[in-house]
């Protein structure tokens, strides 16, 4: 698992947004949007050649972070896009909100820590599900979660 990338995903995103080709943006403001987001994510993962297992894993992680938006920020957005770092490709998932933020990220990333709305498995669970996971949160400003999953298939090109 590549849980600790050498360079911060969030700072990379800020510097040069990854190719927006095929990017999907889904506003999240109700529990129905959670379902839409995970279905769209699964469809994108399928196009990228992910296995059925990985498709479910990606959809599960999307469901968790989208629900965090609803539970803690009420509204926000999910951005999903394919990325490529030749010869491999993968899916990039960003969950962003302008909610209250997380005062103690280390605490929120601990298994079993819960504010009472879930099982305390959401964020640490997503880190286990995905290949790369990063979270940035500023109290009063909002939270951004960036996750990546690499496709096992090598892109052979068109």
């Amino acid at each position, binding site marked *: 698992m590549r849980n600790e990338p050498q360079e911060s995903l969030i700072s990379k995103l800020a510097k040069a947004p990854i190719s927006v080709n095929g990017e999907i943006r889904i506003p999240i403001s109700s529990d129905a949007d959670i379902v839409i987001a995970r279905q769209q994510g699964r469809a994108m993962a399928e196009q990228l050649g992910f296995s059925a297992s990985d498709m*479910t894993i990606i959809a*599960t992680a999307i469901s968790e972070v989208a629900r965090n938006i609803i539970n803690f920020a009420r509204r926000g957005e999910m951005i999903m896009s394919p990325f490529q770092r030749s010869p491999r490709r993968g899916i990039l998932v960003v969950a962003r909100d302008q909610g209250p933020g997380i005062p103690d990220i280390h605490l929120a990333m601990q298994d079993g820590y819960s504010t009472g709305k879930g099982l305390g498995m959401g964020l640490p669970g*997503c880190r286990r599900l995905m290949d790369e996971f990063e979270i940035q949160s500023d109290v009063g400003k909002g939270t951004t979660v960036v996750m990546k999953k690499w496709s096992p298939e090598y892109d052979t090109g068109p």
Partner: protein
Amino acid sequence: MEVPILKQGSYLIATFQAALTDEDLLKLQDALVMQVGKYRSRGVIIDVTALDVMDSFAARTLRSLAYMVRLRGADTVIVGIQPEVAFAMVQLGLTLESVRIALDLEEGLAIMDQRTKTGKGLALVDQRAKRGVLREK
């Protein structure tokens, strides 16, 4: 999309669709807890074969549902967790330890038959329930 609940003998069978919202899950929970009393059901079988994702909310709701059904005097069996869903659940760290689980609907029904026919008293209640069903029809 609401979850259809099928009444079969003294059991209730709820079959999940692929895309369930949190609201659908909570509605199902309420409906099952009510119907267990209404139909004097002995068991509830929840078929999640078609479910795309079992996330922490779904797992928590199923756990509460099973416990509420137990408080109403019936048993719950969850059937049809797919291999990839099981895989994702374990990685996410979800457990359904307190809930009875079977491979598929057939196994679930077999477990229910076993559980509801162990004691003489239970069998009697079961027969009464069956007669009730016949009268209803």
